[in-house]
Structure formats: structure tokens, C-alpha cells
């Protein structure tokens, strides 16, 4: 099995639209939505949930106020400013490290495991899907991403799938790093804007840091031809193969509203471009 991860650095460049197109075009695959902060791939897939569960990804320090002797050691040792000067623990700042538990002379604090997300596996119109979402206000998206990848690996094993397509999240931090670990190929989706290029440089840095082969796609390529050219030059300098560009096409959004991919729309210029990009990637890696 080979895994392909879609990343972009900048958000909203079209990762999910391209992942959805690849899901239509790839035979024998499993899908994973690792953008657990803002999961959207399922909106194109009409999934039917087969299995689901709660993910407990974080500890929270909980204090027994009756046992507390108000010595202030917890406030002193917490490096995350989660214990106030009146010794209240802020659940949003608490990292669940337990330094306060160790420091407390009265055994008044304990760590309590928290529900932080929901994971699911599903059958969908385009194949098996694993995904998750964070519960509102919960953290640890990186660990939840790792959990989704594990579920997707189980699905792939069961289906003896040839491909695993993974939709990633924007940025370069914890969830992106968690999604990138162990993947075979990264497809970077950018757009011809100064922000798109700026963010591409940083995410390519992460991908190179983990020595993963990467390919580039420029979405809405005709929005600014000058910047698109600059991106092409940058990709060449970096030895980053450009799979192609996708023109701006209102049919991409029209298809999304209907729960489909642009490659399923008749006469969609973006759909045609996505098919060409898919063929080029397959030629390069299959």
C-alpha cells in the first residue's frame, strides 16, 4: 500500500477538493480525513458510519479543594500558567503534564483523562473512510490525527487496499507533523498569491525535514499569472516537480454544494485539469 497526503501550508487552497477528485479517480483505496480541526472530506462522500468511538487524548489536572492546603506549590511549578494565583486550574491552559500532582504535598490534585474527540470509520460512495472531529474546545489534534491514521491503516489492511489517500490540515505544526509521519508521498496544493507562496515555502520545509517525496499543484492558477510563474520558478529551484495547474472554475463550488467532486461534473475545466494531474502523479509514483 502507498499513502498520499495532501498538504498546503495555507488553508483554503483546495486540498480537500483535490483529495476528493483523487478519491473518484483512484481504484482500490482507503480514505482518511486527518484535518480533525475542520474535517470536510466526508461532505463529498455520503458516508455511512460503521464504527465510532470517543477518543480520550488528554489529561486534565483536577483539584480537591477540601484537601488543598493552599501552599501554592502547584502555581509555582506550572509552566503553562494554568494555575492562577488563587490556585484555580484553567482547563484550557492545563497541558495535563502532572507537574502539579508531583508538587502537591497534600495529594489534592489528580489527573483525569478527558474525552477530546470522536473518531469514526465509514463506508462511503468512494470507499472506506476514517475520520474524526475534535470536541468543541478540546485540544490534542495531533494525537487524534495519529489515531485516525491507525484506524485508516486497519481499514487498508482489511480491504487489502493499494492506496491510502489522506487529507491533511493547514499549517506546519502538530497535526501536520502527525499526519506526515510515515507517508510515502505528499501533494502540496498552493495558489498563486503571495500568501500561498510564503506558506508553501514553510510547509515544504517540514516535508523536506521528514524527507518525504513531494509534488506541487497550483490551484486557481489563472488568478495571478505572474505569481503563478514565480511559484513555478521556486518549485524548479527546489526540485519540487509541478504536476500542473487548475484553472479557477465556479463548477468546483457547484459540485461541492451537490456533494460531488469537480471531476464528476460535465465540462468542468478544473475537473479536466485534476484528471491530468492525477495521471501525471500516477505515472511518477505508481
Amino acid at each position, binding site marked *: 500500500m502507498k499513502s498520499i497526503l495532501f498538504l*498546503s*501550508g*495555507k*488553508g*483554503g*487552497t483546495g486540498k480537500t477538493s483535490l483529495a476528493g477528485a483523487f478519491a473518484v479517480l483512484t481504484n482500490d483505496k482507503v480514505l482518511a480525513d486527518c484535518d*480533525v*480541526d*475542520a*474535517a*470536510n472530506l466526508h*461532505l463529498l462522500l455520503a458516508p455511512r458510519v460503521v464504527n465510532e468511538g470517543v477518543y480520550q487524548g488528554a489529561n486534565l489536572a483536577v483539584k480537591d479543594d477540601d484537601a488543598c492546603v493552599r501552599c501554592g506549590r502547584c502555581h509555582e*511549578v506550572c*509552566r503553562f*500558567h494554568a494555575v492562577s494565583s488563587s490556585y484555580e486550574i484553567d482547563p*484550557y*491552559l492545563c*497541558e495535563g*503534564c*502532572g*507537574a502539579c500532582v*508531583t508538587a502537591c504535598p497534600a495529594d489534592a490534585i489528580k*489527573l483525569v483523562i478527558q474525552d477530546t474527540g470522536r473518531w469514526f470509520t465509514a463506508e462511503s460512495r468512494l470507499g472506506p473512510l476514517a475520520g474524526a*472531529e*475534535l470536541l*468543541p*474546545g478540546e*485540544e490534542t489534534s*495531533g494525537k487524534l490525527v495519529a489515531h485516525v491514521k491507525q484506524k485508516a491503516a486497519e481499514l487498508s489492511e482489511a480491504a487489502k487496499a493499494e492506496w491510502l489517500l489522506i487529507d491533511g*490540515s*493547514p*499549517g*506546519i*505544526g*502538530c*497535526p*501536520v*507533523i*502527525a499526519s506526515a509521519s510515515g507517508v510515502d508521498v505528499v501533494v502540496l496544493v498552493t495558489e*498563486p*498569491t*503571495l*500568501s500561498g507562496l*510564503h*506558506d508553501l515555502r*514553510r*510547509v515544504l*520545509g*517540514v516535508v523536506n*525535514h521528514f524527507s518525504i517525496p513531494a509534488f506541487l499543484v497550483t490551484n486557481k492558477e489563472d*488568478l*495571478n499569472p*505572474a*505569481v503563478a510563474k514565480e511559484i513555478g520558478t521556486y518549485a524548479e529551484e527546489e526540485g519540487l516537480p509541478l504536476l500542473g495547474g487548475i484553472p*479557477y472554475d*465556479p463548477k468546483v*463550488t457547484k459540485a*461541492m*454544494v451537490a*456533494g460531488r467532486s469537480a471531476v464528476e461534473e460535465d465540462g468542468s475545466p478544473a475537473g479536466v485539469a485534476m484528471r491530468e494531474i492525477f495521471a501525471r502523479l500516477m505515472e511518477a509514483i505508481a
Partner: protein
Amino acid sequence: MRIAIASGKGGTGKTTIAVNLAITLAEQEPIQFLDCDVEEPNAHLFLNPQFEDRQAVVKLLPEVDEGKCTHCGACAEACEFNAMAVLRDKVLVYPELCHGCGRCRMVCPANAIREVPHELGIIESGSARGFPFSHGLLNVGEAMATPIIHTLKEGLDTERTAILDAPPGTGCPTIAALANANIALLVTEPTPFGLHDLRAAVGVARALDVPVAVVINRDGIGDDQVTHYCHKENIPIMLSIPFDRQIAFLYSEGTVLVDAQPEWKDKFLALAAQMKGMTA
């Protein structure tokens, strides 16, 4: 007042709203700008700040003195992040998993652990267009963005209206940026993806007790479900920006909308007035 511009979904126009609001509002009152998207900061591309100060943000990593270590395993047992492993004659530290909490040093009976600073990223601060501007930059390959956001927010000045450009998503970095804001201005687009992620962002803001308002960007490209949702949830839609290739082009080359089309200033002033009315 602290205004956090957030979104759930990426690429909806947070930075566009934040930058134009900042420039417009700065003509009326003292403001400051904090770009809290430390993974992919973009506001500087539009505001061209002059930086005067550069500050490293570090976490403390354990370093084990093998001469003193008895390989008792207490550190690995105490670590909630599986960042340490104790072998028979060696201790392994996994820097990318370590949160820098110091618990391993606290529990070590042999006093064999000291902590060394490890740079996560930097804060750059200075000014842009006459107002204070700062942003954080997570080092490439580092996972922990929140300490940089917390350090950045230490620069909040209560005498100024703060515009905080938040990262996309709903996880730790978004929470760090939204915490203690007076209002979360959520920028979305009228599509199924935009709506889905708007709901998630509203969930986070409400969990943090931060009031929410919405800006619809690229109005007209999709459907009207975002508007229905906002009406149902009683969330004010304070501004709609139509989809317009010229606006998209200005963004692509780093041109500020209100510089190219000053008629937008009235709309951003009206947006600011609505937010003030809501938080008053």
C-alpha cells in the same frame, strides 16, 4: 477591546479582514496588531512592518547526566507525553514529544536531570503604518505552536484595541488565540465546507465564552446555508464581501483592499461599530 479574527476553515479571508479592519480603525483610535497564526503568518505580507525586536520562545528539554543516573525509570514513568524511555544503561529523550513541563526533573531521585532551552520559534515585533505590529513564527519542524501564541499575547496593551489574526482550525493554537477575546469575528464562505467549519468555530468560541459574529466572504459562490444557520443561531452577520476577481487579484499580489478601493473603509468602520455595540 480584543477582537480575534478566526474561521475554522482556512483560506476564508481572516487576514484580509484583519488587515483592512486594522488600517481603517487605526485612523480613529489607537490599535495594535498581533498575527497569532504562528504556523503560517501572512499579515506582514500586506502591512510590511518594520521589526525592531526579535525574541526567542523556548521550551526546556531534559538532559540526563548518565554519570548520576541510576536508570530507575522514574522520569519515564512520570512523563505523560511518552517523551522519555529508560533503557538498562541509557535514557532516551524524544524532543518532539516533550512539552517542557519539568516533571521528570522533579521526580528524579538522583538529581541527574537538568533542563536546557530549545527554541520553538520567535516573536518579531515592531510597527506597521503607525501602529504596533507583532507576529510569531514557529520554527519549521517544531510541533508546539501554543507557547509562541501565549508569549505573543503577553504583548497585549490594554490601552489599544487589539486585532488578533487567529490560525485556522479549532485546536490548541486557535484556542490560545481566542482565549480572553471580547469578540470572535468568524470569517466564512457560503459553501458546505465553510458552513461545516463555521459550526466548529462557533462551538470553540462558545466553549471559551467568547461572543461571536460572522463575516461572509466570497458571497455568491455557493448556497445560502450559512445565512440560514446564522439566523437560526442568532449570530449577527456583520459584513458580506461579494466574490469579485478583482478583490481576489488584489489579495494575490499583496495589495490591501482599502488602499486600492477606499470606499470599503466605511464598511470596515461600520463593522467595528457593530462589534463595539455588541460588546458594550
